[in-house]
C-alpha cells in the first residue's frame, strides 16, 4: 500500500498572536512552531495501515526550511520517506492543495489531520481529493480497510455517521482515531540524519487575498460576584434583565 500523509507546521497552541508590520500576517518572531496536533493522528494511522497491509508511508509538507523539523518528527515516528515542497511565500490554500496533489498522485490512500490549527480551514483533504478526482471522508474517528473497501466512522452534529468508500481515497483524521506514538530517543537521533527530499513548487496564482489581520476586540462587562445565595440570585437577575440571554 502506497500511503501518503500530508502534514503542516503550525504555531504552538500557547502562542500569543501579534500582527506583523505588514498588517496582514502573524508576526513570526519568538513563535514556537510545532507539528499540527491532528497530523499526529494522521501519521499514526499511516503507520498502523503499513503494519496491517504492508507498503510504505511518505510524509509530505509544503513550507520553508523550518518545516524540515516536522518531517524529522514524522521520520522519528517511523515514516519511510519525507518530502518537502519548498515554499517561502505565505501562499493560499489552493497553492498548497495543487502542490500536494502533484506530489501524492498515484497513492492508494492519503491521510490528513482534520484541520491545521493555524487557519482552521478544514479544506485541504477535500481540495486535494477534488483535484485528483478521489473520494474523501473527513473527520474520521475509525477507519477499516478490507481489500479496496473502506469504512469510516465519524461524528457529525446529529450523531455518529458511517461512510463507505473505496481505495484510492483521501481521509482526514479526527482526535480519537488512534493513540499517536511518542518517538523514542534513538529514533529521534536517527531521524536527524535521514534524507529529506526537496522539491520546487509548481506555480499557481492565488485565489484569495488577505486584506488585513486584526486582533479581536474584547468588550466584556466583567462583573465579578461572590458565591453567596444573594450573589447567585443577582447573577440570574443580571442574565435576565441586563444581558437578556435567559
Amino acid at each position: 500500500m502506497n500511503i501518503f500523509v500530508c502534514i503542516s507546521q503550525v504555531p504552538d497552541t500557547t502562542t500569543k498572536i501579534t500582527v506583523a508590520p505588514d498588517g496582514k500576517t502573524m508576526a513570526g518572531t519568538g513563535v514556537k512552531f510545532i507539528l499540527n496536533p491532528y497530523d499526529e493522528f494522521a501519521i499514526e494511522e499511516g503507520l498502523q495501515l503499513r503494519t496491517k497491509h504492508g507498503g510504505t508511508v511518505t510524509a509530505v509538507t509544503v513550507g520553508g526550511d523550518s518545516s524540515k523539523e516536522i518531517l524529522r518528527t514524522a521520520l522519528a515516528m517511523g515514516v519511510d520517506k519525507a518530502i518537502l515542497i519548498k515554499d517561502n511565500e505565505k501562499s493560499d490554500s489552493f497553492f498548497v492543495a495543487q502542490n500536494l496533489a502533484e506530489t501524492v498522485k498515484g497513492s492508494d490512500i492519503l491521510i490528513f489531520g482534520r484541520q491545521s490549527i493555524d487557519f482552521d480551514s478544514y479544506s485541504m483533504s477535500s481540495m486535494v481529493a477534488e483535484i485528483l478526482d478521489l473520494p474523501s471522508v473527513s473527520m474520521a474517528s475509525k477507519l477499516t480497510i478490507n481489500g479496496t473497501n473502506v469504512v469510516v466512522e465519524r461524528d457529525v452534529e446529529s450523531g455518529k455517521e458511517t461512510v463507505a468508500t473505496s481505495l484510492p481515497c483521501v481521509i482526514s483524521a479526527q482526535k480519537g482515531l488512534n493513540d499517536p506514538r511518542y518517538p523514542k530517543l534513538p529514533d529521534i537521533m536517527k531521524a536527524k540524519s535521514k534524507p529529506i527530499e526537496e522539491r520546487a513548487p509548481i506555480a499557481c496564482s492565488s485565489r484569495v487575498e488577505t486584506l488585513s489581520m486584526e486582533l479581536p476586540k474584547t468588550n466584556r462587562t466583567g462583573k465579578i460576584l461572590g458565591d453567596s445565595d444573594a450573589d447567585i440570585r443577582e447573577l440570574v437577575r443580571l442574565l435576565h434583565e441586563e444581558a437578556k440571554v435567559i
Partner: protein
Amino acid sequence: MNRILVYLETHGSGLKRSSLEAITAATATGASVIGLMTDGNETAALSGSEYGLSTCLIAKHPLLSEKSSMAIATTIAQAAKQENVDYVVMAANSTGKEIAPRIAVKLQAGYIPDVISLDASSDKIIAKRPVYAGKAVVSLQATTAQCVMTLRPNVFTAKKQAASLNVSEFIPLIGSNDGRVKITGLVKNEGKLDVSEADVVVSGGRGIKAPENYHLVEELANVLGGAVGSSRAVVDAGWRPHTEQVGQTGKTVSPNLYIACGISGAVQHLAGMSSSKVIVAINKDKEAPIFKIADYGMVGDALEILPKLTDVLRSTLHK
C-alpha cells in the same frame, strides 16, 4: 448586483437554522439570492420563504438521496454555473466543511471558510473570518470571478421576512464516479444537542473534580435547554467524549450564553469560546484567566454553586 447561491439543508420538515442564517446573511448583502436543496421538497423551501427566500431550486438524483458528498458538490457547482452566481454560500458545519472546498476547485473559485461577517459596501464582498482559533481575525477577498464561502453557525441571526416563493426542479448531471462515497448509517444523538449548534453551552473543567459530579453541569444545561461542553482536561482524563470538547483542538462555539464551570481558561480553551455573546465564569481562583474574558464571574466552588444556580434558574424560568 451580486448573485448568491445558498445551499440549504433540511431539518425535519423545514430547514436547518444554519441554512436560514445563510439566507439572511446573503440577503443582507443586497444580492439576488437563489436557494438550492439536494434533499428537500417544496414544504422545506416554503419555510425558507419566511426568511426572505424567493427563488429555490430543488435538485433530484438517486445519488443525492444516498447523500454522496461528491454528488452534492457536483450538483451545487453545476447550479452555480447555470445560475451564473458570483458567490456560493453554505453553513460551516460538517457537510459544508467537506463539500465547499470541492465546489471551489470545480468552479476554480476562491474559498473563504468559517466567515463571521460580510461587508458588501464595495462590489466585491469582503469576508472576515477567525484564524488561529479566534486569536486573530482576517479580512479576505477573492481574486477570482466566483467565490465559495461557509458561514460559521450561530453568528448570523436568521431574520423573518416574508417572500413569495418560486420553486423549480434542477436535474444535475452526475456520473457514477460520484457514487464512490456514500453515507451508509447514522446513529442519532437522541435528544442531545451538539455544542456547536446550541444557543446555550454549559461546560465543565477540572473544577468539577470527578466524572460522577458531571450531572451538576448536565442539570444546569438541561434547565437552560443548552448543550454540555467540556474542557480538554476532562476529555483527556476520559470523563467526557471528545465530541463535547470546546477549544482549539475541539469545537469552536459561539452561543448566546456560555457558562464555564471550574474551567481556569487556558488559552486553547478561550480560543474555542471567546466569541460567545455572553460569558459566565464560575471558578474558585479569582486570578483564573477565564475571568478576564467573562461578562459575569462568580468566585467560588462550582460544585457548591451549580446546584443552587440550577434551582434559582428553574424557579425563575418557570414563573
